[in-house]
């Protein structure tokens, strides 16, 4: 690494060379995150189709294969889908606002990918180890709604606009509950740094994970995450049977695929964050010999896969929520629960240590 830095410094001078070296290494690290992520997205769509198919006693995609290898049948499906989407024309409706119409998918995928910058994959593997990591993620995910709103407006279509309005109201209401659930995690860990949050859950077994003391918050966070990503049963923004396909009804080809990618990248992000915040991130469930030999990265992947399965399971089993029920769940159920839990947790933190016992909390002041 140091020799590459010296080459840069000789080429561009000391100061600019150093800066450009940082830029080049960062771009390398960013691609090391984004390329596997996009592959994960591709195979998540495949997993979704397969899992839902088996739940509905079907087979799912089982044709496209690589080089005619029979036992890989179906595994080529995401690649074939991607190629199909690339070949298709991007139709821009006549009445649409061209600039915003193209901008909307970009604005959707940007925060979905940018949030990954602060996600720690193991104790050392993190791109940006910043102090305010949790806040950064909240800020990035809250920007995702712009893509949906702009897409709905720029399409100049009533269905798209209705979808955008529904999505905006839904995301804004669930963000509050999500934020409050994160405040509870913050109170437990006393740090906004995601790595420190995982380290705060270190212990002998999974009993020290935040899942145990914050179980209601875990449920609230995960369900709000499902709602934020506009997934079933909260997919009123798309609602095929009501408003055709909602905000992306007028999109085709690659522009549509970018929305699709963003949705699945967001799903993986929510699953990853839930794993990091509540399920101990890269920590093994039991700190004993065979389990803690496995690298932390594998544990994190397993937890993400476990949580992602729930997303697919929800979609296969639950009917879509009615719009007023979604609003009620967000405002009248989740927000009161989270606020009460914050007060309870604050009360426990103020208890003297003799009463509180081993409850994993200590005070700032």
């Amino acid at each position, binding site marked *: 690494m140091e020799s590459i830095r010296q080459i840069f410094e000789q080429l561009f001078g000391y100061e600019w060379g150093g800066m450009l070296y940082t830029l080049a290494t960062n771009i390398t690290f960013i691609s090391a995150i984004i390329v596997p992520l996009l592959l994960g997205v591709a195979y998540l769509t495949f997993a979704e189709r397969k899992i839902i198919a088996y739940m509905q006693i079907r087979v799912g995609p089982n044709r496209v294969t690589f080089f005619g290898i029979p036992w890989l049948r179906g595994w080529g499906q995401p690649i074939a889908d991607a190629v199909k989407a690339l070949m298709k024309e991007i139709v821009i409706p006549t009445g649409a606002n061209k600039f915003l119409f193209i901008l909307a998918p970009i604005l959707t995928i940007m925060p979905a990918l940018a949030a990954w910058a602060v996600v720690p994959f193991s104790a050392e593997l993190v791109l940006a180890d910043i102090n305010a990591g949790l*806040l950064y993620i*909240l*800020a990035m995910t809250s920007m995702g709604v712009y893509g949906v*709103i702009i897409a709905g407006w720029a399409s100049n279509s009533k269905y798209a606009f209705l979808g955008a309005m529904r999505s905006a109201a839904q995301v804004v209401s669930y963000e509050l509950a999500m934020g409050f659930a994160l405040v509870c995690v913050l109170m437990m860990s006393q740090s906004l740094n995601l790595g420190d949050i995982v380290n705060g859950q270190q212990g002998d077994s999974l009993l020290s994970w935040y899942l145990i003391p914050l179980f209601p918050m875990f449920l609230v966070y995960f369900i709000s995450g499902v709602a934020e990503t506009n997934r079933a049963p909260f997919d009123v923004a798309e609602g095929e049977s009501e408003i055709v396909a909602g905000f992306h009804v007028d999109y085709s080809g690659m522009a549509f695929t970018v929305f699709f990618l963003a949705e699945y990248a967001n799903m993986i992000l929510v699953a990853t964050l839930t794993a990091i915040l509540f399920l101990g991130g890269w920590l093994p469930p039991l700190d004993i010999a065979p389990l803690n030999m496995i690298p932390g990265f594998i544990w994190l992947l397993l937890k993400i896969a476990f949580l992602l399965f729930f997303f697919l399971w929800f979609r296969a089993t639950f009917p879509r929520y009615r719009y007023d029920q979604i609003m009620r769940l967000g405002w009248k159920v989740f927000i009161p629960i989270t606020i009460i839990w914050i007060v309870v947790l604050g009360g426990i933190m103020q208890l003297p240590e003799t009463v509180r016992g081993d409850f994993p909390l200590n005070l700032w002041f």
Partner: protein
Amino acid sequence: MNFQDFIFYFFSTVLIASALGVITVRNPVYSALLLVLAFVTCAGIWLLLEAEFLAITLVLVYVGAVMVLFLFVVMMLDINLEKLKEGFWKWFPLGGLVALVMVVEIAMIMFGQHFSLEEMPAPEPKAADYSNTKELGRLLYTEYVYAFELAAVLLLVAMIAAIALTLRHREDKKTLDIAKQVNVKKTERLRIVSMQAERKK
């Protein structure tokens, strides 16, 4: 000019351009989106000052929540541009006067003795484990706790007032009793009829 200066001038240019755009573009939706851009670039400049909590909160609160609702309203309005421009010259002197007063006030602060460049040098770089979130929290809940609580009460009063102003009881409105819906039992809704299997002859 080092890299930080370059970033500062880049963000400043974008910020000023987008802020100008907010008041000059004709389409109100563009105007709202340019305001979003202004907030984001402003957050970038704050990050250069190592005020990461304020910068991210600016994005979180203003971009993530306030502007979404703003855009929500602007998109649903049917704005007639011709009508809006009608009274421009009539109100120009008053608007100009207000703008002039504001410029003078800002100049008095910026070039005065308290906020000039000599008085306000660039902040010292802090250690890596310094968290200004923690520092802000400590100050807000100890030294400035009364001001903080007052601001909170003020916001609460404003919120209740806004709700009270728009609240109206309609006689003919139809509402759902959610508790009733949730507590419904299978026996009340469903009747299972046993039928003889029929066969076509």
